[in-house]
């Protein structure tokens, strides 16, 4: 059974190999291979999850057998394994669910390269989840940024180029700040592995020298990763990025890539600084104070949007605000709530991004609300799944979104500080109302005829906007059976996960708690 200890490394190394392999395959084969390979990865990560929960102990994989202060390490506990399983499942569903639009949006000769990027992104995600070395974190952070940019720009319309440029400029800014923070922390501690760094930092804090430098470097790290993950006020790149990408990319970018940065930040707080030291520093107030306006302003921007994709992108900004608010509360339950929200958001938002293009597809490929009137009736399955996700985002009981909001409220009460309790409750209430305002409004819109009262049941398929003059291939106007089936499979898996998180939330919370106990 000890062979399972190799699996975390396999998930990274095999993904790197797969990305090279996909370059050599043709598009459809690359897709088939990636789907099968993602299933294998889910099995590997599940085996690790089973192993660490059965033994009750995290394990460290020492690369090349170089011992602690010198070598590079991978570490696996319940939390890492759980996140890996969830992320890989969402990735698999995104690839399956967005396949039809990938064929439309991407030149056919380049589809295999798309899957090269997806596998590279998987490697980076896995490395960020498992790594125990902060500089490895930096390297894979850049790989994640580059592959994210690649899957964004693969849809060749003008706006995606601009969106990619803005995305990259902001991400480079974030990476630069992150690198500076890492360099400063290294100069303070003399280590890059998280465990010795933490020992050195607690010594420095105990001797009461250099606390200012630690606070400064942490602030730089936080701002760097905050820009990358869309912390208020750095969320303005989100609508362009998510709104113009092909559905699979939008789902992966919003549900996984931006969340991986938060996981790295979380790792730094817990494993590099140590959570006891972190709670003494003013950084968590910064997170709390930026998280709450993020929740409100993200939703306000979403209400003002006229384009469904951009609305959902702004809603991502609001949901990221929730996560940062949980991290900033400074109580153990706050961290549990933040991680639960991270998982719940990944599951819900990916399905939303996979579903809205289907609504647009039966509305003349328009994402504007006035054209989407009645689209839920024209494509009943898409309307149904959109409604489910919308209910979850608003926070209706039974769904994941409700449990997440409940945990935030419980965590706020648990801190016992009025300064935390009052703003949190107020922000939760206001943001729930705002969420309801734009999601329920959208649900009503996709099921009603609107002012014109025109016949909404007939599908409206207009000439293609994305029609690629160069490729000259006819576009698939109607969906084939296998495309429909793969959307249904992915939608059912994601909805199942959503309901599981909502109905049996305590199981996930127990896992997260166990993981946090192992994490420290």
């Amino acid at each position, binding site marked *: 059974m000890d062979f399972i200890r190799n699996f975390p490394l396999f998930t990274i190394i095999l993904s790197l190999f797969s990305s090279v392999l996909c370059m050599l395959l043709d598009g459809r084969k690359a897709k088939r291979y990636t789907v099968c390979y993602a299933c294998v990865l889910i099995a590997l990560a599940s085996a690790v999850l089973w192993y660490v929960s059965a033994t009750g102990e995290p394990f460290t994989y020492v690369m090349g057998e170089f011992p602690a202060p010198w070598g590079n390490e991978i570490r696996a506990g319940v939390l890492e394994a759980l996140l890996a399983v969830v992320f890989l499942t969402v990735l698999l569903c995104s690839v399956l669910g967005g396949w039809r639009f990938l064929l439309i949006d991407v030149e056919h000769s380049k589809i295999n390269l798309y899957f090269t990027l997806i596998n590279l992104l998987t490697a980076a995600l896995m490395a960020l989840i498992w790594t125990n070395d902060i*500089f490895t974190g*930096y*390297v894979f952070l*850049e790989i994640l*940024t*580059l592959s994210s*940019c*690649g899957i964004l*720009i693969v849809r060749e319309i*003008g*706006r995606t*180029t*601009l969106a*990619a*440029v*803005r995305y*990259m*400029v902001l991400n*480079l*800014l974030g*990476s*630069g*700040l992150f*690198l*500076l923070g890492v*360099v*400063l922390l*290294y*100069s303070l501690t003399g280590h*890059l592995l998280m465990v010795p760094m933490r020992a050195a930092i607690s010594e420095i804090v105990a001797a009461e020298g250099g606390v200012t430098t630690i606070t400064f470097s942490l602030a730089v790290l936080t701002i760097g990763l905050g820009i990358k993950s869309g912390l208020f006020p750095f969320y303005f790149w989100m609508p362009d990025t998510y709104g113009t990408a092909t559905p699979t990319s939008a789902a992966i970018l919003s549900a996984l890539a931006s969340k991986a940065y938060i996981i790295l930040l979380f790792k730094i707080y817990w494993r590099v600084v140590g959570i006891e030291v972190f709670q003494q520093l003013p950084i968590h107030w910064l997170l709390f104070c930026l998280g709450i306006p993020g929740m409100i302003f993200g939703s306000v921007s979403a209400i003002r949007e006229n*384009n469904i994709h951009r609305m959902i992108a702004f809603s991502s900004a609001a949901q990221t605000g929730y996560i940062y608010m949980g991290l900033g509360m400074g109580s153990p339950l706050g961290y549990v709530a933040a991680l639960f929200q991270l998982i719940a958001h990944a599951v819900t938002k990916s399905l939303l991004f996979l579903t809205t293009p289907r609504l647009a597809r039966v509305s003349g490929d*328009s*994402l*504007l609300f006035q054209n989407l009137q009645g689209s839920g009736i024209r494509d009943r399955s898409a309307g149904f799944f959109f409604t489910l996700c919308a209910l979850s985002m608003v926070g209706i009981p039974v769904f994941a979104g409700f449990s997440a909001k409940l945990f935030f409220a419980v965590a706020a009460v648990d801190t016992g500080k009025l300064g935390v309790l009052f703003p949190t409750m107020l922000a939760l209430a206001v943001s729930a109302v705002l969420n309801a305002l734009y999601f329920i409004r959208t649900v009503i819109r996709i099921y009603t005829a609107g002012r014109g009262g025109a016949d909404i049941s007939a599908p409206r398929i207009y000439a293609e906007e994305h029609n690629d003059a160069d490729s000259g291939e006819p576009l698939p106007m109607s969906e084939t059976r296998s495309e429909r089936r793969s959307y249904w499979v992915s939608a059912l898996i994601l909805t199942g996960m959503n309901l599981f998180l909502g109905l049996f939330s305590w199981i996930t919370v127990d896992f997260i708690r166990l993981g946090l106990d192992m994490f420290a």
Partner: protein
Amino acid sequence: MQETISALLANYEEAAAIILFVIGLSMLLFHGNLIKKLIGMNIMDTGSFLFLASMGYIENRKAPILVDGLREFEDYINPVPAGLVLTGIVVSVSVTAVMLSLSIRLYRRYHTLNVDEVYLLSRHQLEDR
């Protein structure tokens, strides 16, 4: 005041590194031209690398390569920062390459490299969707 200045002078390499970083950061943020933004990014990264490299070097010590047998460990410098700088340079080069190719694509489409102008040009496209 005098103490601060003498502290800065004593650590002039680190001070220069931070100044470079800030110059690069402000270029990346405030310049409209994409190529200048990229140059800013490279200057910013160079600042970080200078910081690392200056920390790794200690005067009168040698690189840890054994030429005439093992000497006292105080005779050698720490090689890790140099390794990190090399890794960082590789990352920076690949990011620059991707960004340059993006710039070409942007230029072909909009015939300008000024990001603000491109934004204005693309605005009307956004609204009619």
